[in-house]
């Protein structure tokens, strides 16, 4: 009985502990864990290939031919297709790769840095390499900081000023062949009220630069700023009762 009670207390503490964290923190933590797992796999591969790296091309081809003929296995990776394994003892590394179908540029550079640092500790790599990767990573991160900061300050300067005005703003993509489906969907579902305008869909999103002109959705002047929102009944004195915005189809879901 005592043990049971204690376990219950522990479980409650665990749940409480997890709920204290922001979802983004948990996500980052999970990504970090995945990175470590993937790092282990890559270092394993590095070790294997380090051995192979001592072989001449002819010897390497000979080893590969023998292994692929005698010990090759193949399996299906969801979303990728059939993968042939020709290295012995590489099951673990392959399993980790199987779990990492998609990696963002940040994740890749992060993993690359971790791998180089790991190799550095094993003295496989020049410490200078890890430092260069650090600078290259920070340089790339700075690009994202700058792009995002410019985009958001530009958009929010407009939205913050026009918030709760009862007017709508379309979503305008840059209109070239590089626009992604998410942004096209945002454009198709617009316009949107200023106080419910969608966020940028991804890093590098330059939709709404420059910010689009407002669309008049409500008749009459609105001089009492920050008074009305679409979630509140709009005063009939300004003619707002003649337009049901949510039913008008002007606002996307």
């Amino acid at each position, binding site marked *: 009985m005592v043990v049971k009670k204690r376990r219950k207390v522990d479980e409650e503490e665990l749940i409480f502990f997890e709920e204290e964290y922001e979802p983004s923190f948990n996500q980052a933590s999970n990504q970090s864990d995945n990175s470590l797992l993937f790092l282990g796999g*890559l270092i394993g*591969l590095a070790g*294997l*290939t380090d051995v192979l790296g001592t072989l001449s091309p002819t010897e390497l081809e000979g080893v590969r031919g023998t292994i692929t003929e005698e010990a090759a296995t193949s399996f299906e990776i969801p979303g*990728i297709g059939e*993968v042939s*394994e020709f290295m012995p003892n590489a099951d673990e590394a392959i399993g980790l*790769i199987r779990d990492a179908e998609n*990696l*963002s540029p940040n994740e*890749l550079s992060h993993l690359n840095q971790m791998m*180089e640092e790991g190799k550095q500790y094993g*003295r*496989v*790599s020049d*410490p*200078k*390499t*890890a430092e*260069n990767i*650090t*600078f290259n990573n920070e*340089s790339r991160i*700075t690009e994202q900081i*700058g*792009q995002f*900061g*410019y*985009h*958001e*300050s*530009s*958009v*929010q*300067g*407009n*939205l*913050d*000023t*026009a918030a709760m*005005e009862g*007017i709508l703003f379309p979503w305008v993509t*840059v209109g070239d062949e*590089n*626009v*992604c*489906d998410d*942004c096209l969907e945002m454009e198709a579902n617009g316009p949107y009220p200023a106080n419910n305008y969608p966020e940028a869909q*991804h*890093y*590098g*999103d*330059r939709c709404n*630069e420059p*910010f689009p*002109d*407002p669309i008049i959705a409500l008749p009459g*002047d609105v*001089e009492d*700023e920050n008074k009305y929102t679409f979630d509140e009944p709009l005063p009939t004195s300004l003619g707002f009762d003649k337009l049901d915005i949510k039913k008008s189809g002007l606002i996307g879901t």
Partner: protein
Amino acid sequence: MCDVCQNLKDKAVLEKDLYYKLLDEILLTKASTNDPDFKIDTEMGEGEATKDEKQYRQDLQDLIKQVWDKKDKLSDSKIKELIDKLFINEDSEGKQLVAEFITDIYTTNAESMIDKLRELGIKKKIPKDSEVLDALLAWQQFAVEKVGMELYYGIMNQRLGKTYFQVAYGSKEET
């Protein structure tokens, strides 16, 4: 994954050839030790970056370049002083750059919107206190501070690693 989105051009899909590629080309070849060039990527993201955005990004890059240019000549304590001055301190160059640029772009766009609304007969003023602007400034400044911290840790990691190998195994840096 979107096949056409330019923003995703650097995303990687691990396909069946990756395993062979890792073995044949990537891991058998030592990772590039190329020095960073600190030039902005003009093809980053959708569309074309504005002149203001490019300048902001280049100014941020130049902060990192200052560390890069001086790191080999400075002691550990001097490196920390430099990074503090550029990234960490409340009045660091990076944080001042962020505050001035973000506020300026926000204000310029707010004024532009006020003009547009005025043409529609709607009178507005720039919000005296903007929670959104404050939050954006706080995040951008923290991001700059984080860059500084990671640069410092990267440099110190390299120095400590180099020292260890020299002490433990002699002067050679790699096996």
